[in-house]
């Protein structure tokens, strides 16, 4: 069965410091990988995704994630965080289901950026 594991429920970090949010997945089939961000009292916004091609994908606001097939990981990184990056981050995989696809989510990591 497919699953997504986000080991860190909360990551506190100081402003302008680097951060890594970890994501590991388990699947017997090829998967498509996503990171979503949820700001307080809002819905989910797509941050970045890996479908194929280059294993390093980037978002417009400085985040990047690298697909590592051998380690079944898709960790999210940012070299210098801002206060405005404080949010909940969800890793997800899109897997086949009933002639279609579904998203399976990790439990989320709360990034708390302190001044």
């Amino acid at each position, binding site marked *: 069965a497919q699953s997504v594991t*986000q080991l860190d*429920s909360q990551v506190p970090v100081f402003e302008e410091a680097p951060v890594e949010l970890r994501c590991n997945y388990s699947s017997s089939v090829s998967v*498509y990988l996503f990171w979503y961000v949820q700001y307080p009292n809002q819905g989910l916004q797509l941050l970045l995704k890996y479908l194929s091609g280059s294993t390093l994908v980037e978002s417009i606001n400085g985040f990047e994630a690298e697909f590592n097939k051998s380690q079944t990981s898709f960790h999210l990184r940012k070299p210098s965080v801002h206060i405005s990056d404080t949010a909940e981050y969800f890793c997800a995989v899109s897997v086949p289901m009933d*002639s279609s696809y*579904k998203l399976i*989510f990790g439990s989320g990591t709360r990034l708390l950026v302190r001044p």
Partner: protein
Amino acid sequence: TAGITQAPTSQILAAGRSMTLRCTQDMRHNAMYWYRQDLGLGLRLIHYSNTAGTTGKGEVPDGYSVSRANTDDFPLTLASAVPSQTSVYFCASRDSGYGYTFGSGTRLTVV
């Protein structure tokens, strides 16, 4: 702006009462989903629909039902609400690729 509209935004519901959460999309996506979000558990799939006229059960379907009479609408019904159904509910759709769009959510409190 194209996307998904969910209503209501929030609701307090007495246990035992029924309620329908509404979801409408204007992107003509065939696949639609209902997820619930609970602290520490992420989002879990309740029900899905691959196309109008078909529905299927996700991970946590008990106590919920859905219908898909047309492409645009995918309502979620709680027939007899219980406190464990207190959650934030998200409707989503998927395009022909792997692009998922989420609504802004419905916060439901069952008391």
